[in-house]
């Protein structure tokens, strides 16, 4: 198919399904068709030739205000150019078709956005899609587009990938440039792709690598291509399973997903990181304070224009004692050192991505092994300690592990040491090749 035919097909799928899913906040038909025609007109070798994609609406798209899931940013000046990662995907031949729904300012795990509506899970539209990159995961699961971008501060790629049953990559902190994206918490923000196969994920990731001076948090590293390494499989890799917190805060279907993946990989070793709950608390405090400080001027002038789902948390975050936040950063650093040492004995670790499968929209409370916890915040319990120290993770979807909801997926985090995205992707590909992990289209897509 030509790029124009691909773009037209994606636009038709979005038109047919988005009334039900509500993944998109902007569909850019004119832009997409013009870009696709330009792709068709060139003879250049393009690794993503004609691949339609869409981005969480915190990525700058030229000519649109960057909403970041808010009402307030509707008043912002339109972006003057695309975000760096959008430009890199389009330079590789991909075609951007639109912008995707999210939790306001990325502060949530469910994409129950009061301004733009909830994004519904394509595998069961009574359930949440996860968040904050819920539109990004749902659009891939529904087959609207084969590739999307999202962001992950505390789990916002891995949680929706788990709940919507798609593959998601959160690279190492500092790997991909964030320039041209609306920040949430600069100390913890990552960007990354979603796709329905590991090869598509790796192909997109590879073309997005490389330095960009406009993101001071990016670590200058050469492009380290992963697509050519996928066929190496798991040979020679030491694979373990995270215990402790990662078992205690997971319900039986989440633990069963890890057991199934571990069984397929022959991963017998259990690894226990120290003080995981303190690391999670550190991430919680840093996020709350930094996120609030970013929006302080609007909180002072127009707090009621925030989504009620985020407003009170942002207001409280502005009030935190500075010493707590500085101490949280020190604890984070200590935890990163301890975990780095654990990778002397293991190359890849497995852990559940979410405590459970997608809950119904509007769920307020979860019972996790006897603890009654707020449902929305708890969806990130198992992802926060990992992103807190910037480790690369691929989330892989498994199926049929919750007897009460056998139609729903749940994700497993495949975690490696910093800068070893290649290992995460190799193990994810091995699970996909073995038929253990898969991202089928939603039945009604």
């Amino acid at each position, binding site marked *: 198919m030509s790029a124009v035919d691909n773009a037209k097909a994606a636009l038709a799928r979005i038109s047919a399904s988005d009334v039900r899913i509500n993944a998109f906040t902007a569909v850019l038909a004119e832009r997409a068709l013009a870009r696709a025609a330009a792709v068709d007109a060139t003879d250049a070798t393009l690794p993503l030739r004609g691949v339609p994609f869409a981005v969480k609406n915190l990525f700058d798209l030229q000519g649109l205000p960057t909403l970041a899931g808010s009402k307030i940013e509707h008043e912002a000046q339109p972006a003057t150019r695309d975000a760096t990662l959008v430009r890199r995907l389009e330079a590789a031949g991909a075609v951007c078709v639109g912008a995707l729904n999210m939790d306001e300012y990325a502060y949530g795990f469910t994409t129950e956005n009061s301004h733009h509506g909830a994004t519904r899970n394509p595998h069961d539209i009574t359930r949440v899609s996860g968040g904050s990159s819920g539109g990004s995961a749902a659009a891939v699961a529904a087959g609207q587009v084969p590739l999307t971008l999202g962001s992950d501060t505390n789990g916002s790629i891995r949680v929706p990938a788990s709940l919507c049953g798609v593959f998601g990559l959160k690279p190492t902190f500092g790997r991909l440039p964030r320039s041209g994206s609306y920040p949430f918490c600069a100390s913890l923000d990552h960007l990354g792709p979603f796709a329905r196969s590991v090869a598509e994920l790796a192909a997109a990731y590879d073309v997005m690598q490389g330095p960009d001076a406009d993101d001071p*948090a990016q670590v200058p590293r050469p492009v380290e291509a992963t697509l050519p390494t996928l066929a190496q499989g798991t040979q020679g890799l030491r694979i373990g399973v995270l215990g402790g917190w990662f078992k205690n805060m997971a319900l039986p279907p989440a633990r069963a997903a890890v057991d199934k993946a571990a069984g397929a990989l022959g991963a017998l070793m259990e690894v226990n990181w120290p003080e995981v709950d*303190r690391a999670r608390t550190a991430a919680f405090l840093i996020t709350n304070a930094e996120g609030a400080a970013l929006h302080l001027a609007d909180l002072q002038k127009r707090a009621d224009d925030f989504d009620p789902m985020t407003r009170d948390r942002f*207001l409280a975050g*502005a009030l935190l004692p500075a010493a707590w936040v500085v101490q949280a950063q020190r604890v984070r650093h200590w935890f990163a050192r301890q975990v780095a040492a654990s990778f002397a004995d293991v190359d890849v670790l497995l852990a559940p991505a979410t405590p459970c499968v997608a809950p119904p929209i509007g769920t307020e409370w979860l019972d996790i092994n006897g603890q009654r916890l707020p449902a929305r915040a708890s969806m990130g319990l198992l992802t926060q300690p990992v992103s807190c120290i910037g480790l690369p993770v691929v989330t892989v979807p498994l199926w049929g592990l919750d007897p009460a909801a056998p139609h729903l997926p749940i994700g497993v985090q495949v975690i490696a040491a910093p800068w070893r995205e290649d290992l995460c992707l190799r193990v994810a590909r091995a699970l996909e090749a073995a038929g253990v992990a898969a991202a089928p289209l939603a039945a009604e897509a």
Partner: protein
Amino acid sequence: MDIERYVDAQCELLGLKLTAEQKPGVLRYMQLVVGMAPRVAEFAATLTPADESGNTFVPVAARGGDA
């Protein structure tokens, strides 16, 4: 600990005017944070001066570099 008094004082300092609708949620959330923060603060007290912050500054050039 009188959370409400702390919230009122901090809001005054920062120029935040909580409405009657906002305040209960802010107080609930502050109570949650006050319950969690000691997990970090107590542990941080055991660290040494050599345990640096996870937040480090990187010198930068003027904007305008490209990808």
